[in-house]
């Protein structure tokens, strides 16, 4: 029977020829990722209680990104605990304050087509951009993974989203995802969202990651994109070994999809999601003029090098308006370094932006840049649930880096097409 890419990976990881949606199988985990918030502080004590050790320290990646850099005694304690646990358990891959977990997995060249990966974070879907099956799990389940290297999976159905057309000026992958949150809804439980079509094939890895990252907002098990020469090129660029089968992981032509959606983006305008849900997305023109106290460029979704390039393209020759503030937290120290080297940071800082450390920052309401009651923010992050970025009485609009930057110039939600 023909299988989708996700089904093929689950079949391989569970040692079967064939799997069908709805079946429950046990998979061997190729790689497990956790961060300082969901990781050692939660399952360290559980492993102790069980008297168990990590099944394979070479297959574990730990990233400290949620509480970095420490702002109080508690965050400092968590970061130290994480470091100590990594050393004690001889974990092979540890990124301490170097950037956001999903981006570090990519930059470290850890993700390759065909892999079965578990992440202790809901946006672990991000990794699917590399043609692997990567989903997010809670702390108890990740304890199980740490001990056994296995996890049970209820084989999900796959929905296919075919994307065609060229991006209009100041339109990006983020706009596609905001649009899909409104059209596909956020309750795609037990489904894998597979993205394909000519538009996806021409997108960079950084932009592809936005599509799979926000599969989490669609409620999906994960998002996935077949690997190709661009995937292989990324691995080469990151100095990772390119597996011989890198181009072989593809779904069968006649694989059974639960549904197929066509999206032509030729005339897709920039999108904005109103508070308090990504589902409230519509064209930017419905929101222009809304006053914003803060403009935030950050998170795994919206602060990669490519995102910083979008910000600089809009900001060049402009200043951040009085009455608002533009905060920029690059998604990794490598993105910060590269943006400094190519002149991007200069444009951003000359416009008056405030640079923040690389980490989750205000995205999860833990780090620098959180909001006061009554404040409004436009943000390049992925979630705008009530209270996520600070006070429960604050409001967050989601948009692309282009739109956030344009809004910083006017102090109101603005259409970025006027600036590129």
């Amino acid at each position, binding site marked *: 029977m023909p299988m989708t890419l996700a089904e093929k990976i689950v079949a391989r990881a569970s040692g079967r020829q064939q799997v069908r949606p709805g079946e429950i199988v046990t998979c061997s985990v190729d790689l497990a990722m956790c961060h300082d918030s969901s990781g050692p502080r939660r399952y360290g004590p559980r492993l102790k209680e069980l008297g168990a050790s990590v099944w394979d320290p070479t297959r574990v990646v730990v990233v400290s990104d949620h509480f970095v850099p420490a702002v109080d005694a508690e965050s400092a304690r968590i970061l130290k605990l994480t470091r100590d646990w990594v050393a004690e358990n001889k974990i092979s891959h540890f990124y301490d304050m170097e950037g956001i977990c999903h981006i570090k997995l990519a930059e470290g060249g850890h993700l390759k087509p065909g892999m079965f990966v578990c992440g202790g974070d809901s946006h672990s879907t991000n990794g699917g951009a590399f043609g692997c099956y990567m989903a997010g799990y809670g702390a*108890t*389940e990740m304890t199980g993974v740490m001990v056994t290297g296995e996890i049970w999976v209820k084989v999900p159905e796959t929905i296919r989203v075919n994307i065609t057309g060229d991006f209009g000026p100041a339109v990006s992958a983020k706009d596609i995802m905001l649009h899909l949150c409104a059209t596909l809804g956020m*309750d795609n439980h037990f489904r894998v969202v597979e993205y394909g079509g000519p538009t996806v094939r021409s997108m960079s890895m950084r932009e592809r990651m936005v599509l799979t990252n926000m599969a989490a907002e669609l409620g999906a*098990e994960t998002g996935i994109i077949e690997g190709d020469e661009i995937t292989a090129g990324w691995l080469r660029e990151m100095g990772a070994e390119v597996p011989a089968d890198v181009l072989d992981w593809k779904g069968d032509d006649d694989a059974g999809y639960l549904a197929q959606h066509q999206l032509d983006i030729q005339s897709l305008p920039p999108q904005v999601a109103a508070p308090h849900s990504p589902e409230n997305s519509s064209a930017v023109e419905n929101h222009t003029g809304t006053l914003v106290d803060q403009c935030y460029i950050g998170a795994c979704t919206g602060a990669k090098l490519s995102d910083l390039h979008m910000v600089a393209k809009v900001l060049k020759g402009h200043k951040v308006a009085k009455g608002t503030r533009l905060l920029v937290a690059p998604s990794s120290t490598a993105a910060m370094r590269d943006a400094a080297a190519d002149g991007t940071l200069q444009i951003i800082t000359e416009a008056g932006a405030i640079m923040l450390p690389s980490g989750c920052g205000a995205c999860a309401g833990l780090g620098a840049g959180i909001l006061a009651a009554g404040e409004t923010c436009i943000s390049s992050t992925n979630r705008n649930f009530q209270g996520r970025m600070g006070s429960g009485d604050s409001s967050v609009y989601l948009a692309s880096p282009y739109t956030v930057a344009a809004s910083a110039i006017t102090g109101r939600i603005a259409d970025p097409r006027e600036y590129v």
Partner: protein
Amino acid sequence: MIASARVWKFGNGLNTDVLAPGLYFKLPAEEAVVHCLESVRPEFVKEVRQGDVFVAGDDLGIGSSREQAPQNLKMLGISAIIARSFARIFYRNALNIGLPALVCAEADQIEDGDKLSIDPVAGSITNETKGQTYQCDPIPEHLMEMIADGGLMPHLKKKIAAGQK
């Protein structure tokens, strides 16, 4: 096997906030559990008996990842939950705390107070009251073993003690 269990029937989109209201998170679990579903069906907590089954429509357990939501149902004696569809995390949490969760397209046929017999491994549900049989996605034996052990953590403990891991 679950035999002749009384059904508590609920509708669509039952969320984790009504199953485990956040307001009572600071209370010990035994005290917080009495607030389970109080906003939608206050008599549930008083009248539910050990072994009863919980049946709902679509999207059971939408909302947060809190494990207390299925945990409350288990503490109140629920022996299995059946729904037309589940939210992913709630479903995983239920099985991982040792509560069988079954996806059944025909869950709508089941009514409050019906008596059900359930074979999770075969994936069959018999409605004794109505004389009907429904098919559901089976739970494989290897997972039922974990459920019988009381969930993932006790299961791991047992395996480690037996030197299997």
